[in-house]
Structures are given as structure tokens and as C-alpha cells.
């Protein structure tokens, strides 16, 4: 299977004038080169691997050899990676074509993909027929352009790329929900694998004990294929498990009567839209009617997860960001008075205030006098949160079903009314516990909201039981038949387009 024609179609879509600010810079030469390489191979009948010729986008916090890796930050603008992240290498070894690096929140900190140095990412659904039909301009002078919606984050660029048919699949990262959140808002499948299943080597770390590479695809079967190519022990990452991983094909589940689905009551979180609440309920009914056992369960420590996450996340961030000093690579300030002042100026110039804020918080929590009170305490709470899941799964529940987001995607102008920290705290509530417990979780696009935007639901599974998780997700996907995005032709409102793009990123 060599989708030469398909790849060419996708490449044309990718090079169309940047509607989504989804991909950073043209890696077209690299992509074209590899594509023709794949094309040359296929007549001889020897594909490189299961992903031969498939275009894939990679979030810009993965190292890609010879290609700029910026993490959407001034700190790494112009930084050319000297090596490939393990997951990138695995994709390339299977013959995948790297289409480009995708936009994100700076250093993956955020839930909107709005705080990167290259500007915000626009949700392709903003330009869909489904959204446009439902949206009513507030006044006739307001251009339809100004109510574009966010992708969610921080892997917004990757989600947008998959959603807009720019590529077959994309890599994201997930620390508190950064793959599942944009997947839900962009109507694509977003898989967060079990911690330790996929190598983090080459993924520029945010929170080492919670980060995982995330997989974004159009359907659950594709996610299984990607997982098969990426999972497995990496000697370069001591946190990957040693056990052999066997790639699998998903069975077509027909009988769910042996399944037990848990509905955690604490996930009826404050701010959960009535729409999503109803959808969640409908989904539960769907399983019940099909013969599955559906039970309400409790994860009592859920309400502490935000604070706990905040302490642990900022502490690790403060540590991981210490390497950016301008000395060895990346941005270096012109300040020459002393090494210290150069460091300070470099870091002030290189990081946005979200990153700086987290570094300061993290350092505070790690101070000798605060360490026990905050860091150790948070680790204990983390253990409690993880134990909640252990207890529930031990009681016979196979999979948990929860919402992924509190609502559908917000318009950009509305989203930026609150700061990054507030937004993250609100939006991460449904997703971050899975990161704390290291469990696998997946967003499956479920239905369109009243505004014509995607809404997804989340399944959380047992550690390393991705096969079971994805099997159930695939069954659900089949039941709900989520509609395909109907993208309109790119209209030639050039001046208006750029004018509004500019004002959007300045606001």
C-alpha cells in the first residue's frame, strides 16, 4: 500500500496558505525527498515498513535530526536537533514521511495552544460547514474570521494537522491531557499510552514522571498501528519497561456483555457543560443497552489532583528548564557583564511568562524549608490518587468512561480572557489524573455540539492494557459514527485573512 496519490493530495493541502498555523515552516523538501524515496521503493515491492510513505506530523517538542526544534519558544528558535527522538526514529524506520513540526503552547505548557511564540493554532473546525452553519455573527460588521475557535492544547498543532487531513497521524505529548484535550476539540482520536510503554528519549521534558508521547489519528485502528510501531523498551530511557511488546490488531468486538464500565462520579466536575453531561449519560446508556455492566464508581481524591499536579509539575519544570542557560545551544542574550547576568537575561528573553511563572513556583516548592510541606506531601497525594484507580479496577471494573473536556472549543477571543494558569487548572481536571496514575487513556470523538463543534469522551484503562482499552474504544467509535469534517474551500480574502490573523495573535 503506497498512497502516493494520497500523499500528494495531503501535501497540497499542507502547503495551502496557513489557515491553521498548524505546521511550522516548510519541511517540504524533507517530506518530498522521503516521499519520492518511498515511491522509488514501492515498484520494487519492498516497503520500508508498515508506515511506508505515510505522512506524519510531529509536535515541535520532539527532537528531529537536522530539523529545527523550537518547542514554540524563543529559547530554542533556530535550534537544530543533532539527533532524532526514539519515537521519531521508529517512525522513520517504518518508512513514515515527516511532514512537518507542529505548533504548541510554549514548552507544552497550556491547554489552548495559544501561548506559543509563533502564535495560536486555529481549530480547522472553525472553517467547517458544520460550525459556520451554526454560528451567528454578533453584528453584521463582524467578519466570520474573528470567531474562530481554539484547538485546545498543548498539542494543538498536531490535532489540527490530523483533523484537517494534512497528515495521516501526528505525534503529540501528554502530561496533563495535552493530547486528549486537543483531540476532543478537533474531533480526532487522541491516545495517551501507559507511562513506560513508549520511550521519552528525545522528547524535551516537561514533567519527567508524567510525560508520555501521544498519538493522534483519525480512527482507533490507526492509533493501534502507530502504537505498534512506537511501543517497547528503549535502553536510552530507563523509565521504559523491559517487557517485550507485541503489536496487535484490534478485534471487532461485537459482544460487550462481559465488560464492566465504570462511571466515576467525581468527574461530574464544576463547569461541565450540560451538553457534555448529557452526551456522557447517553454513552453510558449505549453500553448498558448493549449488555455491558455499567456502574457508578468513586475516585475520592480527584478533587486534590489539580493542586497536587500543580506542585509536582512546577517542581519538575523548574528542574528541567535549568538547562536552558544560553551557553551551549539556543538563544543567548547579548548581556556580557557576567555569566550570571547572561543567564538571567537569556532566560528572561527566552521564556514566556507562563514558563517563567512555573519555574519560580517550582523552585519555591523545592526549597529546603518547603520540600516536605509541598513536594513530599504532593507525592503522597499522588499515591492516593493512583490508589483510587487501583481500587476501582480491582473491584471488577474494566474501563472507566468520562468526559474529556468541560465543553466544546471556545472562541479564541473568549479563551484568552483568562490567563494560562487559570485555564490549565480548569481544563486539566478531567485528564490529568490519568497522568498522575500513569494509566492509558483515549479520547474518542463522539458527536457535534450545538455549535457544530466536536465533543469527545474519554476511556481510561488498566496499566499496559492498551489492547483492551482500544478494543472498547473501537466498538464505541463504531456505534457513534462521528461525522467527517466538511471543510470549505479556502476563500481568497487575502487582506482580510492576514489582517485578522495579525489581530488575533496580538490580542
Amino acid at each position: 500500500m503506497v498512497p502516493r496519490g494520497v500523499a500528494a493530495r495531503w501535501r497540497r493541502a499542507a502547503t495551502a496558505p496557513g489557515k491553521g498555523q498548524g505546521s511550522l515552516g516548510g519541511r517540504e523538501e524533507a517530506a518530498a525527498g522521503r516521499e519520492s524515496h518511498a515511491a522509488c521503493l514501492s515498484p520494487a515491492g519492498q516497503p520500508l515498513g508498515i508506515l511506508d510513505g505515510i505522512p506524519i506530523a510531529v509536535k515541535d517538542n520532539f527532537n528531529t535530526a537536522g530539523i529545527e526544534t523550537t518547542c514554540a519558544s524563543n529559547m530554542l528558535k533556530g535550534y537544530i536537533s543533532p539527533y532524532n527522538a526514539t519515537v521519531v526514529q521508529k517512525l522513520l524506520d517504518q518508512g513514515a514521511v515527516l511532514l512537518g513540526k507542529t505548533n504548541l503552547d510554549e514548552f507544552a505548557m497550556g491547554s489552548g495552544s495559544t501561548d506559543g511564540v509563533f502564535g495560536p493554532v486555529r481549530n480547522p473546525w472553525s472553517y467547517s460547514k458544520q460550525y459556520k452553519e451554526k454560528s451567528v455573527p454578533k453584528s453584521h460588521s463582524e467578519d466570520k474570521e474573528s470567531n474562530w475557535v481554539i484547538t485546545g492544547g498543548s498539542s494543538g498543532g498536531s490535532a489540527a494537522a490530523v483533523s484537517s487531513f494534512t497528515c495521516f497521524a501526528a505525534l503529540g505529548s501528554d502530561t496533563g491531557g495535552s493530547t486528549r484535550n486537543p483531540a476532543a476539540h478537533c474531533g480526532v482520536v487522541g491516545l495517551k499510552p501507559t507511562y513506560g510503554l513508549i520511550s521519552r528519549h528525545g522528547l524535551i521534558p516537561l514533567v519527567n514522571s508524567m510525560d508520555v508521547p501521544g498519538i493522534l489519528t483519525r480512527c482507533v485502528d490507526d492509533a493501534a498501528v502507530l502504537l505498534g510501531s512506537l511501543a517497547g523498551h528503549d535502553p536510552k530511557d530507563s523509565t521504559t519497561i523491559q517487557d517485550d511488546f507485541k503489536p496487535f490488531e484490534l478485534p471487532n468486538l461485537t459482544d460487550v456483555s462481559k465488560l464492566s464500565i465504570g462511571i466515576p462520579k467525581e468527574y461530574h466536575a464544576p463547569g461541565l457543560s450540560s451538553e457534555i453531561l448529557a452526551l456522557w449519560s447517553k454513552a453510558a446508556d449505549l453500553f448498558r443497552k448493549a449488555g455491558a455492566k455499567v456502574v457508578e464508581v468513586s475516585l475520592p481524591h480527584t478533587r486534590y489532583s489539580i493542586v497536587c499536579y500543580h506542585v509536582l509539575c512546577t517542581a519538575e519544570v523548574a528542574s528541567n528548564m535549568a538547562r536552558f542557560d544560553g551557553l551551549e545551544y539556543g538563544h543567548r542574550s547579548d548581556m556580557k557583564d557576567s555569566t550570571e547576568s547572561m543567564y538571567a537575561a537569556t532566560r528572561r528573553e527566552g521564556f514566556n511568562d507562563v514558563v517563567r511563572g512555573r519555574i519560580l513556583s517550582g523552585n519555591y516548592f523545592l526549597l529546603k524549608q518547603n520540600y516536605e510541606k509541598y513536594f513530599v506531601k504532593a507525592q503522597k497525594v499522588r499515591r492516593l490518587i493512583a490508589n483510587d484507580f487501583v481500587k476501582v479496577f480491582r473491584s471488577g471494573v474494566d474501563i472507566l468512561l468520562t468526559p474529556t473536556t468541560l465543553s466544546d472549543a471556545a472562541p479564541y477571543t473568549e479563551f484568552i480572557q483568562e490567563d494560562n494558569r487559570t485555564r490549565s487548572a480548569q481544563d486539566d481536571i478531567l485528564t490529568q489524573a490519568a497522568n498522575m496514575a500513569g494509566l492509558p487513556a483515549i479520547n474518542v470523538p463522539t458527536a457535534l455540539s450545538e455549535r457544530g463543534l466536536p465533543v469527545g469522551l474519554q476511556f481510561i484503562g488498566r496499566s499496559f492494557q492498551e489492547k483492551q482499552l482500544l478494543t472498547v474504544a473501537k466498538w464505541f467509535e463504531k456505534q457513534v459514527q462521528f461525522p467527517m469534517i466538511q471543510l470549505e474551500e479556502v476563500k481568497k480574502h487575502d487582506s482580510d485573512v492576514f489582517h485578522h490573523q495579525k489581530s488575533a495573535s496580538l490580542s
Partner: protein
Amino acid sequence: MTGLALNCSINKKSLFDRKHYFYADLPAGYQITQQRVPIAVNGSLSYSLCIDNKMSQMVTKTVRIKQIQLEQDSGKSLHDDTRSQTLVDLNRAGVGLMEVVMEPDMCCGEEAAAAVRELQLILQTLGSSQAVMAEGQLRVDANVSVHHPGEPYGVRTEVKNINSMRFLAKAIDYEIQRQIEELENGGTILNETRAFDSKLGCTVPMRDKEGQQDYRFMPEPNLPPLILYDAKSLPANMNHQQVINIDWIHERLPDLPSVKRKKLVEQYGILPEHSFTLLNEDGLAEFFESVVKQTQMKPKKVIGWILKDLLSYLKQHSLTVKESPVSSFLLADLLNLLEKKEISSTAAKQVLAELWKGEGKTPLEIVKEQKLELLQDQKELEQICQAVIDGHENEVMAIKAGNPKVLNKLIGLVQKKTQGRSNPVLVKQLLEKKLSG
């Protein structure tokens, strides 16, 4: 291995931590170390010291080992003051190190140097490190404090930039003196880091550590706890290539220097101080044993040739044992000639001097060339003795009058006549026989 050799308790589970600070030679902004639970604790190191520089009086001392921890090396900073810049060499940054922390059980530079020397030998024997200070393979920082007997320990300073064993002793002794003088003049000792200036032979204040740094220690999230096993705790189905079995390693430890010394003394009947010198020079003990195997000369005699003649020559020419132009085979050959009384010891020394030239000649060849063979003909020797006696009536009378020391003069004369080719012991016997008769 090092933990076991130093009698430590090995922690079967040890942890890694990040120690954060900003410095040009620390590219990650933190160093990975073992602050909470290091790999080994509570050991001891025994070392020997000569009293008053007399090798014959050695005393054994012990220093407690607080812990051994694994950590990362930083890079190297080279300060270029003329151009107001610092050059940073990151080649060794991140490389694994073993830090051995000793308790303050030593009282002077000499003790510290002896302890470190013994540690160096142990590391070399184990193969843990080649521990050459000049190459930076072994780095030593000294923590020094002074106090009156009976009082608690004083404030300590840390002395860095010590590049050799000799400087270690010097730096410590200087710092002890400095602190004593400072206190006696009514001053105080600051808890600071000082650098040893080898040119001036003194310590100077170093990094400006204002107050105490908060390193914001945090567990290293990318390295799971280090688990070691012993025979009891090793699970049955574990892949043996993936785990470390402490007992297995313990069984395979080589003889440590102290054990080797004991064996040398027992096996060869040499003195303890001899065994020290043998182990102190890389390769010397092996050289000695090799010579002993190839010669009939008793080890007690061989040791003299090794420690006096061979070693002093090597030292004079700054050569290592490996670089010696005289191999153990050649030396054994020479000593055999001596032992068989074919040459005198004076002659042997002459031959050795010739062998140093490394011209490839065997001892026998040199002996023949320079006509150094001992006179074997007893009759001829008797004749010469007689001739000397006859020609020195005064001396003969003096001897007979009860001054035996004059005999040496006659022996010397016989030696001269025979061009050194007579066995002085035999000559003495012959002369005495003649004079008594």
C-alpha cells in the same frame, strides 16, 4: 567492588537525586547524585605510616569511610583572566563518578596522603579506576579543621585544586597551620572553599559562596532506584545479565594490597616495609617474584638488589618498572652468576651498570668482555695472597700484634692484584690461614 573492599555496608536499594545550581560547567543546571541513599555506607580503610620516616617502624591506622556515592561529573572551566573570558570544556560532563567520603579521622598531611595512597592502590587492584591523580582520574578535596583536645571539632574549610599526593600533604599541613595562627591571633575560621596554590604553597579563598546554597534537591525522575541483589534475595527467574549479585562479586574480589603484602612477607621472608615498597611501585612486586622464580638466590637477598639497585636506578632516570632496560630474566641471570660465586658482588654491580645501557648483552657476555670472572684457581689465589703477605711485613706484624683490621688492607691489595676478581671472603680466609700458621 570498592564498597566491598572498603568494608562498607552495601545498600541494596539506593536512590538518585538532582542537585541544582547554575554554573558554566554544569550544562543541565543540575548534577545527578545520591544524596538521600548512597550505594555504600559505613566502611573503613586501613593504612600504614612510618614513624619518624623510619621504614622499619610502621604503624597501622584506620580511617572510617562515611559513604560511597555515584554521581555525574561536571565539565571543566578554564579561566582566561587576560581576556576576561572563561572557556568551558564539556567533554567529561555527565560521566559517572564514584565519590568516597571519609570521616575526619586523620590528623595531618602525612596521614591523609598515606590513606589516599592506600585507597589508590586498592582502586588499581580492583580495576575500579587507574586513579592517577595527574590525569584527573583521582581527585581529592581536603576538609580541614582544628580544635583543642577535648573540645568539639572546629569550623572546617574545604581545600580544592590538589593535583598530587605530595601537594595533598602540603596543602593540608599549610591549612592546619593557617587555621591555628588565625585562631591564636583571635580570628575566626570561615566555612569556605579554598584553593591550593602549588606555586606559592598556600591556600587561597575560592568561590564566593555567600551563605549556604540551597540545592533544591529533588529525586531524579528518569532513574528508578538502583536495586542490587545478593544470593538470598536474587529471584530465581531473573536474567543474570541484567542484575548485580553482590555475593557473586565478593567471591571474585582480587587480593587487596594489605593481603598481598602479608603474603609476600610470609612467602618470601622479606620485611613488612619491603612489601610496602614492592606494592608501591607499579609492577615491582611482579618483577621481584619473577626474578625469585628464575634464580637460586634466596628472596631475602634478591630483595636487596630489587629495592636498592634496580629501584634507585629507575628513580634516577624517571622510569617505570615496565620501562626498565633490565628485564627480570637478565637480572636473575646476573644474580645466578653471583650466587654460583662466579663473580663478586662488586663485579655484579659493574655488570649491572653495563646492563642498564640496554645494549642487549647478557651478563655472561659482559663478564667475559670485562674479565670480571672470579679467579677459580685456588692455587693461583694462594700464590697472590702469599705474595702480598711477603711484600707487606709491617702490616703482617700489625695483624699478628692484634690489630685485625689491618687485614682489610691486605685483602684490598689482593683485590687490586687480581683486578677485583677475587672473592673477598675467600681471600680473607686464605690470608688468615696463612697468617695464623
